[in-house]
C-alpha cells in the first residue's frame, strides 16, 4: 500500500523523478490543453503556427540580408538565419511561457497536489511543436539551396537535447522565482528581447569572437544559447565547430539545470502559501 509521509523537518526530498514519471498523463494533458486553447476560435487555426514563423523569417531575411547585408561567408542567409532562429525561437517560447506558468496555474496549485515541475515542463512540450515547425522550414530551405548537411549532422540531436535542457532550466528557475517576485513577469520579456541580439541568431558568432576582446567574449558565451547555435550551424552548414568558448555555454547549461531543479524543489513546498 502506498505510504505518504508528511514531515515538516525535511526541506529537500530529492528530485522526485519517480513521481514526475507517474504524472506523465497530467503532463500530457496540460500540454495538449494549451495547444487546443491556443488556436481555439481562430479562423485558420493551426495554420497560424506556420504563418507566424514564416512572416518573422521573411522580415528578418529582408532586413538583415538585403538592407544591412550581414556577411555569412558564402552560406545563403536564409539557411544561416534559420539555424540560429529555430533553437532561439524554442528557447524564447519556453522561457516566456514557463516563466509565468506557475502563476498562471495558481488555481490548481492551491487546490490539488501534484509534482509542480509538471507545469513548466508541459510548457516546454508545447514549445516543441513550434520548434518542429521551424526545423521543417529549415530543412525545406536547405533542400531549396541544395545544401547537404556534413557528416557531423549526427551530433544534431545532442544540440537539440541541450537546447531543450537549456530552455527548460531557465524556465524552471524563472517559474520558481516569479512566484515570490512578480517583477520577473516584466523582466522576462525584456531579457528575451535583448537576448535575441546578444545571441548569434542574425549574425555569426565568429564576428563576436574576432571583434571583441577576450574577456568580453567569455562574458558573451555565458549565454547558454551562444554555444548551441554555433553547434547547429556546425552540424547543418559545416560552419566552424563550436569554439573553445562554447564550452562555457555548455557548462552554464549544466549549472542552471542542476541549480534550477534544486531551487524549484526547495520552494515547491511553500508555493501554495506565497502564490
Amino acid at each position, binding site marked *: *500500500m*502506498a505510504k505518504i509521509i508528511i514531515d515538516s523537518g525535511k526541506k529537500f526530498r530529492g528530485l522526485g523523478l519517480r513521481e514526475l514519471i507517474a504524472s506523465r498523463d497530467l503532463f500530457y*494533458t496540460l500540454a495538449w490543453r494549451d495547444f487546443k*486553447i491556443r488556436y481555439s476560435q481562430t479562423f485558420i487555426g493551426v495554420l497560424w503556427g506556420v504563418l507566424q514563423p514564416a512572416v518573422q523569417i521573411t522580415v528578418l531575411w529582408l532586413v538583415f540580408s538585403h538592407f544591412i547585408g550581414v556577411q555569412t561567408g558564402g552560406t545563403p542567409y536564409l539557411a544561416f538565419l534559420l539555424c540560429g532562429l529555430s533553437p532561439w525561437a524554442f528557447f524564447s517560447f519556453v522561457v516566456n511561457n514557463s516563466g509565468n506558468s506557475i502563476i498562471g496555474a495558481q488555481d490548481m496549485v492551491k487546490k490539488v497536489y*501534484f509534482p509542480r515541475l509538471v507545469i513548466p515542463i508541459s510548457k516546454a512540450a508545447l514549445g516543441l511543436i513550434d520548434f518542429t515547425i521551424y526545423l521543417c522550414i529549415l530543412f525545406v530551405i536547405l533542400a531549396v539551396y541544395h545544401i547537404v548537411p556534413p557528416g557531423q549532422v549526427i551530433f544534431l540531436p545532442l544540440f537539440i537535447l541541450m537546447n531543450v535542457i537549456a530552455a527548460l532550466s531557465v524556465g524552471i528557475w524563472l517559474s520558481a522565482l516569479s512566484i515570490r517576485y512578480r517583477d520577473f513577469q516584466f523582466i522576462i520579456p525584456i531579457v528575451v528581447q535583448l537576448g535575441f541580439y546578444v545571441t548569434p541568431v542574425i549574425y555569426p558568432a565568429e564576428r563576436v569572437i574576432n571583434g571583441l576582446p577576450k574577456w568580453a567574449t567569455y562574458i558573451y558565451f555565458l549565454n547558454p544559447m551562444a554555444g548551441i547555435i554555433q553547434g547547429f550551424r556546425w552540424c547543418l552548414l559545416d560552419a566552424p565547430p563550436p569554439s573553445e568558448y562554447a564550452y562555457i555555454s555548455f557548462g552554464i547549461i549544466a549549472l542552471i539545470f542542476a541549480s534550477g531543479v534544486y531551487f524549484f524543489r526547495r520552494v515547491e513546498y511553500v508555493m501554495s*502559501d506565497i502564490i
Partner: protein
Amino acid sequence: MPMSDVAIKVENLSKKYELGTLGAGSLRELFAGIFSSKKAREEFWALRDLTFEIKQGDIVGVVGKNGAGKSTLLKVLSRITQPTTGRAEINGRVSSLLEVGTGFNPELTGKENIFLNGTILGMTRSEIARKYDEIVEFSGVARFLDTPVKHYSSGMYVRLAFAVAAHLEPEILIIDEVLAVGDSEFQQKCLGKMGEVSKSGRTILFVSHNMSAVMSLCNKGILLRQGQLIEQGPIGNIVTHYMHANRNDTHDKNLVNVSNRNGNGNFRFTKWELTDTEGMPVENGMSGRDVQFHLYFEINEPSVRPVHFSLRIVDDFDRSILHMSTTHTPTGEFKIPAAAKSGKVVITVPRVPLPAGIYSIHLFVSDLNVVFDEINFAGDFKVEEGDYFGNGKTIDPKLAVVYQSSSWQLVTQ
C-alpha cells in the same frame, strides 16, 4: 508487511502563517530586507499541535467555525501546503477534493474537461476512459459533451465537475465543503454516491458547515477551534459539542457587541426579547403556547426600498426548523419612514410547534437586494415541554421535529 488499520496518523502537527508576508513579494522588498533589520512579523497559527489517528474505513467529519483550521488541515494532509512542525503518515492512495472543477477550462468541451480535470485529480487517462460512460451518465449532461463548457449553465458545470470527482477511487478521500454548490437534488445524489464510496471501506475526511450532511454521512468527528483539537469521537457528540460552543451566552440578548455578523450595517440589530402575547417578558417558550419575538434595530442609513426581516430557528444539529419572514406574511415587507432612527419588529408565533429543546435563532434584515445585517446564533431560544395537542401527550422526538395538530374523521362502510 502487516496491514496497518490506521489510515492517517498525525503527530504534533502545526502550521504557521506569517501575516503580511502571505502574498508574493517584490524585488524591492528583497533588497529592503537585506539592508534593514528583519522586521517583526505577526504570526498566525492556523493549526496548533494536532495529534490524532484515523482508522481505515472511518468517515470523519471535521467540524469547527470559520478560521478554526479545517481547510488548513485538509491542505496539509493533501500535501498542498507544508506543515511548520510535526508530521503525518498516510497509508494509502489519497485524492483530495478541495474544489469541484479544478482546472476546468471554459474553451474546452465537456468531454475534454472530463479528461483534463480527471488527470489533474490524479487519474490516468486510461482510467478515465474506462469510467467515461459512467461519468457522463452521472453528470446528466450527455447532450452537451461536445460543447465548450463556457456555454454551460453553472448547474451543468457543477454536475459535470462533480461527476468526475465522484468517480475517483482512492483509498483515502479528502473533501472540503464542495457540496455547498449545486442544487439540493444533486447534492443528495452526491451524498448518496459518497455514502456508496464509504461503504466500500474507504476512509473519508469531510469538511462541511452543513451539520445534517455531516451527521448523515460521517461516523466519527473531529472538532477544531482556533487551530486546536478540542474533541475527537463519535459524530453525534462532536456535532452537539460544536452547536453548544456556538451559542451566545444564554441570557445575553444584547446584540450590539456581536462581531460575527454580515451585512453593510445600514440597519443593525441591537437586541432581541421574548414576551408573551401581552408583551410581558418571558424567559423561555413553551410547546403550544403563543410567543412574541421583539427584534430591536438601529437605522444608520434609511432605506428607500421596503425592508425585509427574517427569523430562523435552528436545532441542535444545525437543521433549520422554522423560517419566518416578512415575505411569508399577507402584509409583506415594511416601508420604513425616512426619519426613523431605530425601531423594533414584533413577530407573533402562535402555538409554538416545537418539541422541548434548545434552539438557536438567526436574524436577517435586508432590502431584498442588499443585506443590512445578518447574525447567526443570535441567541438561544429554549422551549419547555408544553401541551401542544391539548391532551397532555407529546410525540417521540424520533418521529417528528415539529408538531402539527390535525383532526381525524372515521368513515366506515
